């Protein structure tokens, strides 16, 4: 399952980040490495998704969310 499929207030774990090393390093350095727990704060189906992890609120574009594999926690 990818991040964009998750609904508001659902908790998840990052499994894998697909993409080039630039993309991976960006996601990791912002606080979403593999195996980190997160909470979806907002997903209205159109705007970038808001997730909360490591005390940080992060907005991620929907297209980029499709590159992030997650599972329910």
């Amino acid at each position: 399952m990818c991040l964009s499929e998750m609904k508001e207030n659902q908790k998840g774990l990052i499994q894998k980040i697909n993409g080039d090393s630039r993309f991976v390093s960006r996601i990791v350095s912002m606080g979403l490495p593999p195996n980190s727990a997160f909470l979806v704060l907002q997903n209205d189906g159109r705007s970038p998704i808001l997730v909360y992890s490591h005390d940080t609120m992060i907005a991620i574009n929907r297209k980029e969310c499709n590159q992030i594999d997650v599972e329910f926690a």
Partner: protein
Amino acid sequence: MRTIALLGQPNSGKSTLFNALTGSHQHVGNWPGKTVERAEGFFTYGEELYRVVDLPGSYGLTANSAEEMVTRTYIEHGYADLVCIIVDAAQLERSLYMLADFVGVKSPVMLILNMMDVAEHHGKKIDVVKLEKLLNIPVLGFVASDTDGYLRFFETMERALNTHAIISVDKARSFAETSENSVVSRLENYLSGLKLGVREKFWIASKLLENDSLVCFEIRNAVDSERWQEIKKVLDEKGVEGGLLMGEAKYRFISETLREVTTETQQQVKLSRFDKIATHRIWGKFVAFFILVITLAVSMMIAVPIIASCFGLQGVAEPLVVKMCESFGWWPSVASFVNSVFVGGLAVTVAMMGFVFAILVTFGLMEDTGYLARSSYVFDSWLSRLGLHGKAFMPLFSGLACTGGAVCGTRVLDTRGQRLFAMVLLWSIPCGAKVSVVLFLASVFFGSMAPLFGIVYVAMIFASFWLSSRLFGNKLMPVSERVGMIMELPPYHKPHWKILIKTVVRNVWAIFKKAIVVIWAVSLLFWLVSYSKDGVVEHSVLYTIGNAIEPFTQIFGMRWQLFISYLGGIFSKEASLGVMSVVFASTNDAFSLISRNEAGANLGEMMRAAVSIPEALAFIFASMFNVPCVLTMGTTYRETHSFKWTAAIAGYYFAISLGLAFVVYHIALWVF
């Protein structure tokens, strides 16, 4: 002199610390050979002078942009005597990623846990002494906005310098190198015998695993091809996994370290009610517009009294100068020289500083409180089409109030390329004065049809955005460096008024100094060319030049009077009306060509009589994209630190405004 480098993630309070440490002893320029802003400053502690280098904010030491490249290169060369890593205590785990990424660099280092007050407020307790023991480097719990705490900062800094505190790699390494995974040590073996400077083999190995382009390039050139093949084999085994592995290891190192140090009360996390609205796809935009309109209204309230008193003073000063010159028996032209160049230039500059001040304060506030990121979030989808970050919305919108001030407002953008591009766009966004001049001209010639020009104008602006993004977009913001929005929305903070106002005042002063020079130089030039002994325009150099190049300017539909008015528009939009009043009325008032800021009483009538419809159209369209004003040139020069770029942007707008005039004129000739 010893050098302290400040290293931290965006929103960690790095610039607050930098400003508080260095005060007015700052120098902002460009990194040599790079288009990245370099801020450094100085302070003295004890007997010694210290240099502080504010490294561009970055989430880690991997270089994905020009800014991050600067930070990374500076750190890996070990240029600083002490690296001061500053983290947000309220977001400790995430912001310590910078420290985890730094492990393996053998430069003396200290750690500052900033915003301890906010962390405590969130129910987080951090045992600083224990953390210091675990990391074995000086650690300071700190509140950068609290000016009383700086003595402790200096003590910690001294301790770090004296003990040459270097962070050990052993612990971090143990998380990356496990019994089932020996990839780090395998890579380290291949690196033996290489000159790595301040970097441990571990640091290089982890960057290799992250597929970091700089390190890969460096090592490939440093080892023979056989050894590179071996390294490559190890890396290919891992692929992208390598980067994920290292990232995970770094966070494990952090959370293991923090487990013994922090206690926190679990809080339920959800979007605050305000954030629900502020980040809403539709309501969020309304909120942003509302805040912006309020912001601009407040800017006006701050700026208008300054502007009014300034022009009031000008009104008082000018007759005084005239009288003084008369009493000394000097030429009347001396008085006109002093008035139109020095007094007039000063008045315009000070007046505009009101806008600059207001825009910088309000943007600073939005950044401080964290709201700016919310507005970026809702507008990102609009601006990403141009390749810009959502943050650009605020400065672009405030361009409607004052182009020159908004140019300074582009500071909220993170990369220099984005800033330059936003400036390019800003020059085509009309301020109130420009709109009123264009509409005045339109109503003179086209009466009730004038509002149509408003619509055409808006369309033209969007067309110019498109053109600019075609011409400059990829150069300033390479497509390969663009990423879809991945942005932190920082928690809301109370603004630090004292530091904010101090910083803004200092910036306004610096901008004023640059702008006044440009304005005086341009005023002087205008005065010289429009000078004639008897004050008749036809006897000035300007007329001679205008007349001589008339065959050329007529290609664009502009006779010499109109072309001179167009040039006057470069000074300021109001000045172009003043110039027209002079050249069309042939009054003996050419002395004050550009210091007349208004249309003469019967300007409309005279122009209708002297200017044909195609010429009028050409002039109106040329005015739309003319160089906004000399103040904008001044602030652009100050903000880009580059004469070349300022000239390039000015040249670009010259070209589009004249090109547009050309097209419009010839079509109109054919139609009318």
